[in-house]
């Protein structure tokens, strides 16, 4: 019997293919966005898992103090002195447009759990001709080979040499070739010279005489660093899933409404309520499977489109390599299906509930329904109040957490805020409508219009809630992105004080400094330096805490060119005092460190120096956007002389008449640097801005999509009741209301409703922006942004929502305009 019932139920959609389309559209949109973001996350996780395997062994590095390149003799001397160093060669190979990193290693001495695997042929093959090129499967695309051809192939690179036979290693990061140092030396023509001497972290307590030891900076794994990024993506995807399910709910509700007669007939014919419910459940499952399949297919397509941007973002923000092709484990498929079906069942639960409790003899009475809706409104208000209490509780919890923590709690807070506001929306609208009704009782048509919209409210309320959520999120996210943009560009302007920068290896930069100082065109050289240090203790207002942690050091030259503009967030006694303190043995710390370690100007950090542990006072905190790590800042010369740091770049101030091109050429001629080692400040800004834009491409794309989905939900709801609306308007028309007025009426009604929702979304959006910049951002990235609001953007967003609403309302109006009075009256006969 159940199949016959199901067939009867499904027959409805044959007569109303539009409803079927809407239902599937909702499911499709909901599941597509969700599954695409999950696909991106799953792929990134796979990349992290590979990278994590790498990070288990970081290395310390040795360089020569005299700035000369390392050679095999350095290696042999150090080994014969008993130091566990390992040689490494690194270079770039060009293959067409692409650049691949070539790494030559000596597996026998690499600081790792190393093993001479018996007579392992694999080791012999790696060490002896024709050697092996190990690479990740993704990398073979760059070489223009298929996966079948790749193993054993010996592709030619740009210098007309052949690579050793390829061996695929899925564990390797993309665009990296690894081979024996002998093979790499031949390809790079490096003879005796070396790029690196590496040792296991901490294997050397002191650098050997004549060498400088750079410790592996303590890096969090990319997974930890990018966690919050993926959480952001997931939150946005969840939002679109919810909004998509609103569409589904509207479509299901409509179909249910229109099939009530059929359902009652079926029940009257003796179909048990259980069978009927099961049939509807089956129907839901069928739709769910079709919708999920559609959603998965397009989700994967969408993920493919998003992934390159996500990968670029992650690599520019965190230097985390994410492959450009999707990796989808089984739990991805199951997860996406379960989420979509679960969401569908949730959305359809109302329908199932009604089918199960269907009263055979009840007649659809608008007034009775309205009374029922009053009870529903009351429940909504109560629910909203409960959620509001939860939101306040979460806010209290957040305020007690030390800053820089509680990403999940903050998202919980935002979710509670959104849900609470959404739940309170219908009662609020209802209250406003009642007030209007009282005010308008002398104007019958307006009075009717308000009463009519009150009647529509039960069906419209879900779409309005969806719109509220989407609008508020949209406002929140776009204010954050916009605010970040302003702050970031400002900050770049302040940080990049010198008009020219030279980037090269430390061994090239050090001798270059003297040469530059001797150039008549160069007014000022502003070297920066990098290094790292063991942080031994930190002392703040709450007490002293001992630790041992590797912290990155950054050195700048505190000349007026820099100090006049370098941004500072917090100082003890003003900017100029802070700068003189820096020159006199104080340090600055970045905001990330201040947040993570709860440090403020005036606190003290104890650092390990070659002379032993030494305390340094913190003179200021500076913003350091985009840096995932904690950092201590000190003058370049202190960093180089006392902490063994390396010159990282040189900022140049040249006089007005200087010929930059000539300087570029002279640099290239005198030192072993390419002409593009000299970079214009404008160029750096352009690059930084580009990275920034990419970072938020995804956010913007998802944000826009969410608003689109909400508009669709509204549109779908209005469409669903368009026919019924005509019927009611027909009565008005029959009463003598002019057709023009009748056509405009829905526009006013809906426009007013959307405007009301939009106005409510504004404070909500601001609250979300604040949570994003002041809490989530600090927790996720370690820096706080000033709260910026963009009235024009808010206005545009509202206008867009209004436009969508009016367009949706216009459709029934146009139908009305076109219908003949006769036809309308015919429909009006209930």
């Amino acid at each position, binding site marked *: 019997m159940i199949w016959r019932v199901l067939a009867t139920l499904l027959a409805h959609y044959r007569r109303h293919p539009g409803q079927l389309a809407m239902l599937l559209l909702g499911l499709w949109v909901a599941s597509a966005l969700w599954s695409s973001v999950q696909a991106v996350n799953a792929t990134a996780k796979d990349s992290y898992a*590979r990278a994590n395997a*790498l990070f288990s*062994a970081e290395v310390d590095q040795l360089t020569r103090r005299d700035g000369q390149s390392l050679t*095999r003799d350095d290696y042999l001397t150090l080994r014969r002195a008993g130091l566990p160093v390992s040689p490494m060669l690194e270079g770039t190979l060009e293959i067409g447009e692409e650049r691949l*990193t070539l*790494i030559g290693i000596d597996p026998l001495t690499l600081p790792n759990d190393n093993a001479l695997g018996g007579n392992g042929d694999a080791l012999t093959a790696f060490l002896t001709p024709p050697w092996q090129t190990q690479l990740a499967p993704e990398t073979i695309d760059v070489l223009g080979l298929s996966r079948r051809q790749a193993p054993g192939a010996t592709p030619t690179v740009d210098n007309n040499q052949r690579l050793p036979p390829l061996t695929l290693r899925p*564990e390797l990061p993309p665009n990296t070739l690894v081979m024996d140092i002998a093979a790499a030396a031949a390809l790079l023509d490096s003879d005796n010279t070396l790029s690196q001497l590496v040792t296991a972290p901490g294997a050397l307590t002191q650098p050997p005489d004549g060498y400088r030891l750079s410790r592996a900076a303590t890096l969090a794994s990319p997974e930890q660093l990018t966690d919050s990024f993926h959480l952001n993506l997931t939150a946005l995807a969840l939002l679109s899933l919810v909004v998509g399910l609103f569409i589904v709910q509207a479509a299901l509700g409509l179909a249910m409404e229109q099939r009530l007669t059929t359902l009652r007939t079926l029940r009257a014919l003796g179909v048990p309520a259980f069978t009927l419910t099961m049939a509807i459940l089956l129907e839901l499952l069928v739709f769910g499977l079709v919708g999920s399949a559609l959603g998965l297919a397009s989700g994967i397509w969408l993920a493919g489109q998003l992934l390159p941007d996500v990968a670029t973002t992650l690599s520019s923000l965190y*230097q985390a390599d994410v492959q450009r092709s999707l990796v989808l484990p089984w739990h991805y498929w199951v997860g996406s299906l379960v989420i979509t079906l679960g969401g569908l069942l949730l959305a359809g639960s109302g329908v199932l509930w009604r089918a199960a409790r269907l009263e055979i003899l009840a007649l659809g009475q608008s007034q009775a329904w309205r009374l029922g809706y009053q009870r529903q409104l009351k429940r909504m208000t109560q629910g909203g109040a409960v959620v509001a209490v939860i939101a306040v509780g979460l806010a209290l919890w957040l305020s007690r957490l030390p800053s820089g923590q509680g990403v999940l709690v903050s998202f919980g807070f935002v979710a509670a805020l959104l849900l609470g506001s959404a739940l309170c929306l219908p009662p609020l609208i209802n209250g406003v409508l009642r007030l209007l009704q009282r005010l308008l009782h002398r104007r019958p048509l307006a009075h009717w219009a308000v009463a009519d919209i009150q009647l529509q409210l039960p069906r419209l309320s879900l779409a309005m809630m969806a719109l509220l959520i989407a609008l508020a999120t949209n406002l929140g996210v776009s204010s954050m992105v916009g605010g970040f943009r302003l702050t970031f560009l400002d900050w770049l302007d302040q940080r990049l004080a010198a008009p020219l920068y030279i980037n090269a290896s430390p061994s090239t930069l050090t001798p270059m400094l003297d040469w530059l100082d001797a150039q008549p065109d160069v007014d000022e050289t502003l070297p920066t330096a990098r290094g790292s240090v063991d942080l031994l203790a930190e002392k703040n207002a709450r007490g002293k805490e001992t630790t041992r942690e590797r912290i990155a050091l950054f050195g700048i030259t505190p000349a007026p060119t820099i100090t006049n503009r370098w941004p500072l967030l917090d100082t003890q006694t003003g900017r100029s005092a802070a700068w003189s303190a820096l020159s006199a043995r104080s340090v600055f710390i970045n905001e990330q460190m201040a947040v993570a370690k709860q440090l403020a100007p005036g606190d003290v950090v104890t650092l390990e120096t070659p002379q032993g542990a030494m305390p340094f006072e913190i003179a200021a905190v500076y913003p350091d956007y985009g840096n995932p790590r904690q950092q201590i800042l000190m003058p370049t010369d202190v960093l180089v002389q006392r902490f063994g740091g390396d010159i990282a770049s040189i900022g140049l101030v040249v006089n007005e008449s200087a010929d930059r091109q000539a300087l570029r050429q002279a640099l290239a001629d005198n030192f072993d640097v390419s002409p593009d080692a000299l970079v214009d400040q404008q160029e750096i800004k352009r690059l930084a801005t580009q990275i920034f834009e990419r970072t938020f491409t995804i956010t913007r794309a998802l944000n826009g999509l969410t608003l689109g989905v909400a508009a669709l939900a509204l549109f779908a709801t209005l469409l669903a009741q368009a026919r019924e609306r005509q019927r009611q308007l027909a009565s008005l028309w029959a009463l003598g209301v002019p057709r023009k007025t009748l056509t405009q009426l829905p526009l006013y009604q809906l426009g007013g409703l959307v405007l009301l929702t939009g106005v409510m979304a504004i404070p909500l959006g601001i609250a979300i922006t604040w949570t994003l910049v002041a809490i989530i951002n600090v927790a996720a990235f370690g820096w706080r942004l000033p709260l910026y609001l963009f009235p024009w953007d808010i206005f545009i967003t509202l206008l867009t929502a209004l436009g969508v609403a009016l367009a949706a309302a216009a459709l029934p109006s146009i139908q009305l305009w076109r219908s003949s009075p006769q036809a309308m009256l015919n429909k009006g006969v209930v």
Partner: protein
Amino acid sequence: MSYYRLSAALIAISCLILTGCQETSPEAEPQGFAGLGENAAAFAEANAYTPLSFPQDHGPHPDYRIEWWYLTANLEDAQGEPLGLQWTLFRQALTPPDERPDPTPWATDQVWMAHLGISQGETHVAAERFARSHSQKASGQAGVKAVPFQAWIDDWILESPPDANFEDFTLSAYSGEGADRFGYELTLSAQGPLIWHGKNGFNAKTVDGQGSRYYSQPYLQITGRVTRNGEAREVSGKGWLDREWSSQLLAPEQTGWDWFSLHLTDGRKLMAYRLRGGGEEGGDYVFGHLLSADGQTELIGPDSVTLTPLETQVVAGRDIPTRWSLTLPDADMQLVVEARHPNRWMPTSVPYWEGDVVVRQAETQESIGVGYLEMTGY
């Protein structure tokens, strides 16, 4: 270079070495010591027709696949506590002589591996080093020179003074830093001649005639200083230096060996081993050599030794025989050889058991010597 790229290289190698071997079909690739039985057609083959020639033969033989300089010592500290130590330099040829790469700075055809072990009571510490070299390049991270004798890898070095004629040596090898540092600094001097095992120093290892070139200096008197847990102590005692090279040490069906080098209190030396598999009718191949105190007389030849495990213990998850019966019917000797402690596992890339033993009369349980036992392929 970013740390990411560096780390990328590290994973490359760990996957190369840890999983690489399994990727080539595992059945065709016996692991560890059993791998020494692989076919070695293109390498030089050990034979009994060329007499050993010194001092050249103290140096490396890169045309052969495998070679070692192997020192074990039974020492005592000032309190009379026994202490065992081991230092070994292994050489392995990666390619047959005619397939060697050109000697560019990093090209390699030889891989060196060295092991350092110190045992006392229940403690046992070990370290391992690796290096590459090219047989056509004289100096490098590791190597061996015949005159003056020098065998080194990094700062571990066993060497003779210029005119010492392979009779006096110093050995220095340390690993770790600070409180974890261990190692030794020893002076070794030979109190007897070099012993050639087998005909012309050719030691057959299967009934089919495969084998190795093998000679020993079992009469070493040792003094020096051993450091453990950062604490140094004076030691003295007896040592045994083995030299062996071959291209096919084991027949393919042989799985490992049990090798004994014993210093008896009456001054005699006993070397005996059992190769598991490869004997007649699939049995074990057993060989022994009893030497007089002055090294002049070979007291017993091969076929008259039996070696039987009496007791096994679980060490590193494997059943290891730690008590043995060793009989030499021709010499009327019935001995029991027992490990001082089962914890002598060398957790090196090719793991094995190597440790100090006590020798007793089987009947009286009277202690009549000390020695070293090496067990591989378990």
